[in-house]
């Protein structure tokens, strides 16, 4: 693999908005250019129609909605009232805090464990490499719904695996998901124990593209394997690491499935997260305007990370 695995980042050469052909400023020529290329527009048409209806309009609408009190006939413009409500409500603050804690623990853990695991895997032969890669990626292709269902059982108070294993050490049964002091941590532990399959695959691909001559030179200087790892491997994997950190941070801010399948945000609001709160506000309480404002705030948070990702990666090309 010679190419660095990169995120969805366009190549530099497309960056400039070139004006095509010689139609510059000449309406007649422009019309001619459009007519000559009618087939290109036809090829684009299906995507453009779908995109407009189900992406573009909803995106704009989401912003409009956040300034409205939604009614089926004649929505009312309410200015920043929804946003004020968002920031004044305890529910949002708690959801934000929970989501942050979830992210701050699970993202570094996931990325570091992916780095360590892929380093170990990379030492092995070809067959064992692909075997372990598959073993760690398989849970990633399985629906989170399924994984959440099993974990809910593993956390069961009476006959779950966790309490059984704790019993070996004489630690009393813990009501993992049933009490607010442990529920969020139970979800965090679960996330940490699901291998970061995407990370492992991308790290392995990047490690394969590091030139062996670097290691050879280091060996000549008598550097130990561990030193080689610290001083060569890790620095050269930095772009991949950054990409993975941002990818999983963005993903982590959207955590939802585990919540609704395992705790429903409870007990109380101990495991409430941003997306689950949006879901509840919008589709249980049908407060569309408020849910819209919550979504916009979530969007801004994620956008910050996306922009960082975009910049960092573009500099590396």
């Amino acid at each position: 693999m010679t190419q660095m695995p990169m995120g969805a980042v366009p190549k530099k050469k497309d960056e400039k908005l070139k004006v095509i052909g010689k139609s510059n400023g000449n309406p007649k020529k422009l019309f001619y250019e459009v007519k000559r290329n009618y087939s290109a527009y036809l090829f684009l048409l299906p995507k453009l129609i779908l995109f407009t209806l189900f992406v573009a309009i909803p995106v704009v609408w989401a912003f409009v909605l956040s300034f409205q009190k939604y009614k089926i006939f004649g929505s009312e413009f309410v200015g920043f009232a929804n946003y004020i409500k968002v920031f004044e409500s305890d529910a949002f603050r708690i959801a934000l805090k929970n989501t942050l804690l979830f992210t701050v623990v699970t993202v570094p853990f996931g990325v570091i464990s992916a780095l360590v695991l892929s380093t170990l895997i990379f030492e092995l032969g070809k067959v064992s490499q692909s075997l372990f890669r598959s073993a760690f990626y398989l849970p990633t292709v399985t629906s989170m719904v399924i994984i959440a269902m099993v974990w809910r059982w593993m956390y069961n108070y009476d006959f779950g695996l966790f309490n059984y294993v704790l019993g070996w050490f004489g630690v009393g049964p813990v009501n993992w998901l049933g009490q607010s002091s442990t529920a969020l941590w139970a979800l965090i532990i679960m996330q940490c124990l699901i291998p970061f399959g995407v990370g492992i695959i991308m790290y392995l691909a990047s490690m394969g593209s590091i030139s062996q001559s670097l290691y050879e030179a280091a060996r000549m200087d008598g550097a130990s394997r561990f030193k080689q790892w610290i001083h060569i491997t890790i620095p050269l994997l930095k772009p991949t690491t950054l990409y993975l950190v941002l990818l999983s941070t963005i993903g982590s801010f959207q955590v939802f499935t585990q919540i609704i399948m395992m705790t429903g945000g409870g007990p109380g609001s101990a495991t409430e997260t941003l997306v689950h709160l949006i879901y509840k506000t919008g589709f249980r309480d049908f407060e569309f305007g408020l849910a819209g404002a919550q979504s916009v705030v979530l969007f801004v948070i994620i956008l910050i990370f996306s922009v960082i990702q975009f910049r960092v990666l573009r500099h590396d090309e």
Partner: protein
Amino acid sequence: MKKKPLDRLNKLIIFGLLTVFAVVSLLPLYWVFSTSLQLSSYQSQDMERPVSYVDSNPPKMYPMGIPLYFKHWGEAREAAKAGDAKEEEYHRDMMDHIVSNSFGSFKNLFKKHDVGKWFFNSIYIAVVVTIGILLIDSMAGYVLAKKKFPGRNLIFWIIISTMMIPGQVTLVPLFIMVGNLGLMDTHWALILPDLSMVFGVFLMRQFMYSIPDELLEAARMDGASEWRTFWTVVLPLARPGLAALGIFTFMNVWNSFLWPIIVLNTSELYTLPVGLKTLQDANLASFKLLMSGAAVAAIPMIIVFILFQRYFVKGLTLGGVKE
């Protein structure tokens, strides 16, 4: 060029460590299958009451039907040797009971619940969306990569800029939109928004760049129409990209959950993840049944993964994947 190989002991240690981690990571999946086949009711001659191994403490790590089946099989053979026909029949009956009980929840799922329908819905929606995406996105990606026409860059940038917007942001407006179009609680409410995802346009455009212009030129010289060129020259060359995109689309649609639970209300229309949720909500007690449902939902993805593994790797390293 060669890495210095590790000595055997170190290799063994690494192998052992990785095996432990792999077991931990695969344990939940193993648990699904093991529990779905767990014996939920068993009573031998010397037991006062039937026992269930599904929620026993300590938990049983493998389907208990397997050792018990062989136990009865052995005893049936001994009884046959001793000429005790009654005893032999008892053990034969027990063997039948063990088999039918172990696989019983799968039968129940399809008989008493709509799992058959959910499975069909999931398959057909995933297939329709995948085929649709492959066609629509490769058409768009092709002209965006290979044709020069006014507005090309503008269109591309508008489409790409929405890649950064998480799906949850448009949840509410999309809900209203789908309602206004009269699509609520239909499969169109899932299919159309899925077909609008933009990741594929980006991926296909990157891929189409690598197709040499000379080939397209040659096709044009031969008098092939635009569509014919696309169909017979471009698409075959883009096959690896199409495979990667197809697999990720299938996986995303198969596992999609948040949007389907919002727009679907009728059990007959559910996809598997939505169905599983209602099953869990309604059926707290029967873990065996739940895990059988989970197994039914997991198996197709596992098969797809095993068959197309290398495209997963390719797709991941080609461009980031949207969860």
